[in-house]
């Protein structure tokens, strides 16, 4: 019966279901010779051209020569007037124009089609033509384009407008001249024409805010017909509202609200989404948008439900109360056949739900988890984590749920997410610690993922010894030594050593276990066991502390470089580890985005690593002898954004010197700067050398440097330097960048001051065990002082400020202030320039501002003093 419906069939091949099954490039390119036959064999050529397009679509790559040959053969097909064939040729032109050479040869054929009488040709010909023309060629077809934009056939007009938008990516100037035609198209009857015209018009006016505002208010009052155009308009309006913090035209918001009552669902959703995404929307303004979305939640169309629940879950992150009204509808969605919708519903509920609903939600989750994929499970786990932090009292229920999930099926990312969540809960709530550790111990008994096992072992080593009964963990750890692969065994040995170092009662047993590990088949395991056994057997607490609990953390690359250097010189002197930079503890790693996360993050400027800077500076001969780089500061802006010249300063600290690196950008396209230098002056600071940047063309980054010896007296190592940018200007042609004159003139430009603070002399350092380090350092060089920090209103603020001010690293997660506490202790660790270890304990209390008792310990009295004075 189907046979009777079949239209004219093409040549069939024996490919089972797929006539293109056996198509390969070489033979098709052979077949393409048929394009050259006269008269054109329409049927055959159509078939061959379809095959070529099919191949290209499958990802077959043609070389430039092959593409050019096919392209030229294809131009012969313009002789035929068959509609399908001609339009396939247009497609071919668009596909090949990126690879083939000399494609402009078809310009005249396409221009003819575009201006001809046949509507079927005109629209696609315009689109093909605009793909092969560049800005200069555009002028020759300008007249036709203008006509096409206002053509009465909507297809032609749309094609022209869409082509305009494509052209604007490369040459926006041309299209700007057609603005009146585009405006005329905006009032067209064509649904799509209106949308395309608005898109082009907005692109033309985008940078002129006043013009956009005008355009918008005109369109709001006149009204658009096309729902697509209205969606577009809503996006422009939302942007306008967001950009104006104060005094927004209330008509704009009224428009958004009015669109909630539009007849097209697409528009209603667009408006609701815009309203809830706007930061300034108040609860009252949110309400109508939320209720529209709530209605969508029970709509029979899955996409509508999906869109609504996705948007609501976004709102729930910031304003859970606003969404709470939808909880009932959301609970119904947990059973939705579309698992994406169900997952979004559950995670939203986890955010909006009250403490009382947690138990009920957990029940629905367990039944729900069985039939969703790992990606969604991770989303649920993350929601559970947020919930656990929000309701500490429900942690035992949540922990049980997580433990169940940990036992269930799942891949590494999923298991990792659960383990991370349990670890977070443990760290957040000391009461949950033992239970959490038990769950994790049980998990590693049967864990196939090495990385995860190692991570959990490491955690056990850190937390286990400090629990009430450390002995019970030994069995789990030692089981790993017996049962697991080398990486896990090695980690387990290290953990055993940590228990031995901290729990005296266990020491003798641990030594026996370590002795057994010395028989291991793997070098690394044996090495570790021998090493730890030797250190622990000394029973020397200083040694144990230094080599097991808080081992030195050198930057490995610097250590290597220093050792190579040392071997080249006189090796009779002992190698001094004091001058070596310690590796700064890794910044908190960025969370990998989960499947449901939508908003793309703003791109962050990549700050080069310590290593990168060290290499760059070592390459400059003048700086090669300064020794290892101790620390580089974060880039500091010395100019306002968007000024003529932009300068950023990076402070590099060496043992006895500071190098100021100035990254300069010239934003004037009619100037070439030469001999660019930054002159710095300050009390007690002398510039020993400066390296100017010889030439700074428009928009390129150039660096100049100043070398300053650090004053001997440790108390004068901080200060403020005034900075001036000095350079020689040569005017030049903006287009080419070539200077007009040989002569230039001197000029300068005042920059903001460069501050050299205590933090520039301190490198962050991690202490896995702060208390041990604190006792080890002793009270010999202790300084204590009390400060009133009147400007601070919260403990969080104080913690962040102090940490930043001292440039040290918070230990034992003391940077997190539990909610609702009025006092807190912050532990900081760092290394002062010259390799002096510094530890700081700051007791903070909230009372009309923040009161702080600061205790500093270090191995040098002067260092203690300068750190203590830094806060004052």
């Amino acid at each position, binding site marked *: 019966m189907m046979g009777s419906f079949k239209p004219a069939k093409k040549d069939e091949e024996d490919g089972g279901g797929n006539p293109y099954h056996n198509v390969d490039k070489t033979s098709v390119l052979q077949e393409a010779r048929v394009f050259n036959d006269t008269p054109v064999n329409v049927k055959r050529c159509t078939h061959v051209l379809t095959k070529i397009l099919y191949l290209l679509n499958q990802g077959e790559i043609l070389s430039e020569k092959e593409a050019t040959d096919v392209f030229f053969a294809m131009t012969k097909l313009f002789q035929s007037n068959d509609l399908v064939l001609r339009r396939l040729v247009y497609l071919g032109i668009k596909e090949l124009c990126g690879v083939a050479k000399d494609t402009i040869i078809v310009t005249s054929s396409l221009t003819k089609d575009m201006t001809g009488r046949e509507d079927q040709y005109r629209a696609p010909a315009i689109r093909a033509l605009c793909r092969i023309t560049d800005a200069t060629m555009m002028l020759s077809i300008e007249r036709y384009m203008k006509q096409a934009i206002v053509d009465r056939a909507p*297809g032609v007009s*749309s094609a022209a407008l869409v082509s305009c938008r494509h052209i604007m990516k490369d040459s926006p100037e041309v299209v700007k001249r057609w603005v009146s035609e585009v405006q005329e198209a905006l009032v067209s009857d064509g649904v799509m024409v209106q*949308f395309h015209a608005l898109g082009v018009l907005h692109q033309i006016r985008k940078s002129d805010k006043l013009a956009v505002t005008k355009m918008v208010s005109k369109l709001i009052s006149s009204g658009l017909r096309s729902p697509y155009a209205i969606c577009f308009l809503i996006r422009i309006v939302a942007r306008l509202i967001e950009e104006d913090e104060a005094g927004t035209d209330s008509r704009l918001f009224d428009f958004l609200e009015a669109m909630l009552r539009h007849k097209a669902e697409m528009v209603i959703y667009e408006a609701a989404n815009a309203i809830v995404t706007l930061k300034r929307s108040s609860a009252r303004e949110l309400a109508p948008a939320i209720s529209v979305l709530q209605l969508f939640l029970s709509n029979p169309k899955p996409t509508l439900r*999906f869109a609504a629940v996705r948007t609501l879950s976004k709102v729930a992150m910031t304003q859970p109360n606003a969404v709470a009204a939808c909880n009932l509808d959301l609970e119904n969605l947990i059973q939705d056949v579309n698992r994406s919708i169900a997952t979004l519903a559950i995670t939203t509920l986890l955010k909006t739900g009250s403490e009382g609903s947690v138990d009920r939600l957990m029940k629905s989750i367990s039944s729900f988890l069985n039939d969703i994929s790992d990606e969604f499970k991770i989303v649920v786990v993350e929601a559970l984590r947020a919930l656990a932090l929000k309701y500490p009292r429900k942690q035992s229920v949540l922990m049980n749920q997580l433990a169940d999930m940990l036992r269930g099926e799942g891949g590494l990312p999923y298991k990792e997410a659960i383990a991370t969540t349990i670890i977070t809960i443990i760290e957040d709530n000391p009461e949950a610690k033992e239970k959490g550790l038990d769950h994790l111990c049980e998990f590693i008994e049967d864990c196939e993922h090495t990385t995860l096992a190692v991570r959990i072992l490491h955690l056990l080593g850190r937390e286990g010894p400090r629990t009430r009964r450390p002995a019970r963990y030994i069995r789990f750890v030692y089981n790993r030594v017996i049962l697991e692969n080398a990486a896990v065994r090695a980690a387990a040995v290290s953990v055993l050593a940590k228990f031995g170092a901290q729990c005296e009662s266990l020491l003798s047993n641990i030594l026996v276990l370590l002795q057994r590990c010395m028989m291991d088949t793997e070098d690394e395991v044996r090495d570790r066991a021998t090493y730890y056994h030797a250190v622990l057997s000394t029973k020397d607490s200083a040694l144990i502390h230094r080599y097991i609990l808080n081992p030195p953390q050198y930057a490995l690359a610097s250590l290597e470089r220093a050792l190579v250097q040392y071997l080249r010189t006189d090796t009779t002197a002992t190698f001094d580890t004091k001058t070596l930079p310690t590796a700064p503890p890794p910044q908190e790693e960025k969370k990998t985005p989960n499947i449901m996360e939508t908003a*793309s993050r703003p791109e962050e400027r990549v700050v080069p690593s310590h290593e990168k800077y060290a290499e760059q500076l070592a390459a400059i001969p003048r700086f090669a002898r300064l020794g290892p780089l101790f620390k580089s500061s974060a880039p500091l802006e010395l100019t306002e954004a968007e000024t003529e010249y932009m300068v950023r300063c990076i402070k590099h600290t060496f043992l006895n010197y500071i190098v100021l690196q100035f990254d300069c950008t010239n934003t004037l396209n009619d100037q070439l700067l030469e001999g660019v230098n930054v002159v710095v002056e300050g009390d007690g600071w002398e510039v020993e050398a400066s390296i100017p940047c010889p030439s700074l063309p428009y928009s390129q980054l150039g660096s100049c440097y100043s070398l300053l010896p650090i004053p001997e007296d440790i108390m004068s190592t901080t200060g403020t330097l005034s900075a001036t940018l000095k350079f020689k200007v040569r005017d030049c042609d903006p287009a080419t960048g070539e200077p007009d004159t040989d002569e230039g003139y001197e000029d300068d430009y005042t920059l903001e001051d460069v501050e050299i603070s205590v933090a520039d002399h301190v490198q962050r350092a991690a202490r896995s065990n702060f208390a041990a380090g604190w006792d080890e350092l002793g009270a010999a060089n202790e300084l204590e002082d009390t400060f009133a920090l009147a400007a601070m209103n919260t403990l969080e603020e104080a913690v962040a400020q102090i940490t930043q001010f001292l440039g040290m690293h918070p230990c034992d997660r003391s940077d997190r202030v539990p909610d609702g506490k009025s006092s807190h202790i912050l532990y900081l660790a760092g290394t002062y320039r010259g390799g002096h270890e510094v530890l700081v304990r700051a007791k903070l209390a909230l009372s009309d501002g923040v009161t702080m008792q600061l205790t500093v310990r270090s191995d040098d009295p002067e260092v203690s003093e300068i750190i203590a004075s830094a806060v004052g």
Partner: protein
Amino acid sequence: MSGLLNPTLYMIKGIAILDNDGNRIFTKYYDPTIFTSVKEEKKFEKNLFQKTHRANAEVIMLDRLTCVYRSNVDLFFYVMGASEENELILVSVLSCLYDAVSAILRKNVEKRMLLDNLDIIMLAIDEICAGGIPLETDPQVVSQRVALRMEESPFNDQTVTQVLQSAREQLKWSLLK
């Protein structure tokens, strides 16, 4: 910045037609930054098919793309947009694609028929989306613009009743829009 949508015409990131093994029949990606190689594209398509071929649930989020889909017999149609894109716009493009294909194939939406008419299908997709911009969303307009062959050999296989039937269907579709 904020989560507000960027006003841009480039709303569609890709269109795909896959067969019932998840193999590509015809796909177009309009944003070269999403996938850097054909290999990645095909990997994504396989993954997409894996996740969608069983449940007919219309929408899924995958690799930071929102994909709306529809299937019939042995064909799967997908339209993809950025993850924050208005799903309803994507669905309108998808319905246009599906209905246009259905009209071109005279309701026989299946692999064999589609491959036999691949040239026309390619033209139709070109009419629906131009480099990421939705060009036309009315399936009737699309099928009219590309259904050139039918004019050449008008209804030689169809009986009068069938023609009437299909005309009635078309009218119904246009009313339902």
